């Protein structure tokens, strides 16, 4: 094995794009490990941990660290992949000087919505540009300091704008799915969610029941915390109350701060549009029962939620989640050990587990015989284009090791990954698959008794 370490100046690509380059390189024959990343302290440490000798480098520089039989061949492929990334930038550059800030993009006049997904420490400036330009903004980035979130939301409130996110990567506006969102049909239900996967669970179940959405506004997982005070949730509720396409509103949140929940409920009481609340950890019940309530209110039948079940034997439940709200919901239903791999501590400097399942697969492989793995798989825009591809072999291996796998599969048939295709692949590999996370958790819990 030969090693190559180099630091390239004057090249920038976002972390997800570079992760895809790293993965493509690692998949080459004879390549043991490949790290292609911006030289942030975190990535430098990562490369050191992999046994590379790393020269000093700045976060604005590109770090390449390779170990392969044929380093020259790998470098050639690297150049090609980076070239592909750059050629996309050149294409936009030839059409004039491309905007370098959201402020300057907004000045071009066409944009009416902003999606921010730069690293969290830099998201503030871009989001502020949007607020100052009077545009609604969705902050997909996580690791945004809470005081910056508070400031942005207050400013937006003053200016009649709307800040969605941060760290709650979902919104569907005018039919367009921003961040992690499912392919949903248009319909009468407006969603306000301080929870990304919570919104995805409810809207996906509604879609299975043939009911569509008007708007899905993910207001950030901390919105109903004491610090943020529900500013965006209340603003979003009022906006949906004004929206003629919205006949019914669903409000979804992880367990909220009690006094904020109270204030939000006061706003809810004053709306003309009926509201179903699903505030986890309160008396509201789980997301599946909230969905059933919505269907009831619309006079629609509640279907049997699709599932591909298998019997499971007793075992303690280990929750390996990518969605924070789904994780919380499941932990409220069944006792066990739960880890939310979408939490900021796991996503700092690496891709979200809905895009890169590595950490969860490692955790799955480490479970003890007899344990029950409870996992979510979330489909839709932005998510892994084929999660079953990596997950199915891991499930087979786990099953062989006497670990039982129960999966909550959140998505719609219209999603790029296809709900049924994924469900069948996961089921075939040995997992029980439920479209309702609550049912999945109960299934796992039933086995635990």
């Amino acid at each position, binding site marked *: 094995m030969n090693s190559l370490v180099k630091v390239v100046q004057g090249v920038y690509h976002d972390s997800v794009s570079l992760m895809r380059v790293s993965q493509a390189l690692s998949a080459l024959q004879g390549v043991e490990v490949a790290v292609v990343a911006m030289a942030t302290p975190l990535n430098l440490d990562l490369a050191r941990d992999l046994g590379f000798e790393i020269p000093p480098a700045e976060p604005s520089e590109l770090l390449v660290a390779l170990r392969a039989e044929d380093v020259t061949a790998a470098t050639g492929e690297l150049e090609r992949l980076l070239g592909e990334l750059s050629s996309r930038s050149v294409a936009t550059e030839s059409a004039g000087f491309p905007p*370098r800030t959201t402020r300057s993009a907004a000045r071009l006049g066409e944009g*009416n919505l902003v999606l921010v997904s730069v690293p969290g420490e830099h998201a503030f400036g871009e989001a502020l540009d949007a607020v100052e330009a009077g545009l*609604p903004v969705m902050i997909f980035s996580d690791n945004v300091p809470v005081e910056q979130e508070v400031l942005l939301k207050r400013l937006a409130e003053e200016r009649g704008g709307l800040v969605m996110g941060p760290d709650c990567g979902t919104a569907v*506006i005018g039919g367009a799915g*921003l961040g992690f969102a499912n392919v949903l049909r248009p319909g009468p239900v407006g969603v306000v969610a301080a929870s990304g996967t919570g919104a995805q669970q409810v809207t996906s179940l509604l879609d299975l029941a043939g009911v569509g959405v008007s708007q899905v506004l993910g207001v950030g997982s901390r919105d109903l915390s004491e610090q943020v005070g529900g500013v965006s949730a209340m603003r979003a509720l009022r906006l949906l109350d004004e929206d003629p396409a919205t006949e019914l509103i669903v409000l979804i949140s992880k367990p909220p701060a009690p006094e904020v929940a109270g204030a939000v409920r006061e706003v809810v009481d004053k709306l003309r549009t009926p509201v179903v609340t699903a505030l986890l950890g309160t008396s509201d019940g789980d997301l599946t029962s909230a969905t059933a309530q919505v269907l009831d209110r619309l006079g629609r039948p509640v279907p049997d939620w699709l599932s591909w079940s298998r019997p499971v034997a007793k075992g303690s439940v280990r929750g390996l989640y990518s969605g924070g709200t789904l994780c919380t919901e499941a932990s409220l239903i069944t006792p066990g050990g739960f880890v939310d791999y979408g939490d900021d501590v796991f996503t700092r400097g690496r891709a979200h587990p809905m895009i890169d399942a590595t950490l969860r697969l490692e955790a799955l492989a480490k479970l003890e015989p007899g344990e029950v793995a409870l996992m979510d798989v979330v489909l839709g825009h932005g998510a892994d284009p084929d999660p079953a591809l990596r997950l199915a072999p891991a499930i087979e291996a786990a099953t062989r090791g006497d670990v039982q796998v129960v999966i909550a599969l959140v998505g719609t048939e219209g999603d790029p990954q296809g709900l049924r295709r994924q469900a069948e692949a996961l089921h075939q590999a040995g997992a029980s698959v439920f479209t309702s996370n609550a049912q999945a958790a109960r299934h796992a819990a039933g086995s635990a008794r």
Partner: protein
Amino acid sequence: MTLLPADPHVITVGADLLGEALDAQAVPRTPVEWRPPLRGTAAALARVLADPRRSAANELAVGRLLSARPQLVGVRPAADALGLERGTFLHAGPPITWERASGPMRGALIGAVLLEDMAATEEEARRLLAGGRVRLDPCHHHGAVGPMAGVVSPSMWMFEVRDAEHGGTAYCSLNEGLGKVLRYGAYGPEVLERLRWMGSVLGPSLRDALRVTGPIDLRGLIAQALQMGDELHNRNRAATSLFLRELAPALVEAAPAHAAQVLRFAGGNDHFFLNPAMAAAKVSTDAARGVPGSSLVVAMARNGTDFGVQLSGLGDRWFTGPAGVPDGLYLGAYGPADANPDIGDSTITETSGLGGFAMAAAPAIVKFVGGEVGDAITATRSMYEITLAEHPAYQIPGLGFRGTPVGIDVALVARTGLLPVVNTGIAGRVAGTGQVGAGLVSPPAEAFIAALNALAFDK
């Protein structure tokens, strides 16, 4: 009106993956070519951007810069105009000592000492300057600017420009022409002789002519010159012609004995108008000074050793970095080895949205500064990314009469990593050499990083 668009057009900034997901949905979008900010600015940026004063402060500051109406109102000796006393010498850029001064700066100071008869020989002048028995002070500290070395001594005459909108006044020396001249550090007998003639003939004649014309509207003149191919830093040919057209009849009336001589001198120097343009830029940027919380750059200046910037929200403090060596074309046999680091207050033109920022207006000089016409357009376009406004009067025909990018925001510089584009002349590094070329220079990022951090964290 609804806030949520029925037909979304999304501005995407960040991960390509999410942009591609929108493309697959046939959602039109405008991608931002985002880069991480300049090194060491993330914390300062967060703080400056969060300052509740910033938005209104910048609006006020840049509004004042845009609305300034510079008028040329007089020509006076520096002793009279600036109250400059014998033994005090002004210079370009941030403060500097004789010890740290570069070749051309030293040469110009020697010349000025000789001009003021404070020494009889070059050696004596050097001793005087090295002995610390003269006072050196930046032009900028006296409401003045000077090209290249920018050395001003009491007997030199100055253009006096008043801002008819906000009432400020700014000064700039008279241009000596090209070749061996004091501002490039030359101090030979012919240089001193020319300066003496400028003091005895040129200055008084211009003063008398201006009394006949009354105040000359420089805002209007600069606007016209931009439409005639000048960018008002490295090309002033059109502006000089327009200026002389205004002055000529008055000169003939007011100073018949010297009119021909004066017109021949000024007409033979395409840069004659650079100095009034600089005073106009100075009076305009000065109008934007002193707004607490504003991240607007109100001065960029170089002394041949350091490149310094000042911010509206931080008074007279300078933030500096090492002056770079310009990249451009060299005269005759000169080359980069002969070049002095960047020098002069003329970057006040860029600070006010002219010069490099208006490069797209001056296709004639793009070769001179080492590029193609497309580069000039790109240079101007890129400056819209770091400026707060577009000038209502200074327009660029080739960009559909779009206003020039004006009002550098140090926060935008840090966010985009784009440094101001500066056009400049290049001085020889050895005192007395004079001009060796002209080109583009990139300011040191340190100066902007330091300014931003001070705005963020200093009381």
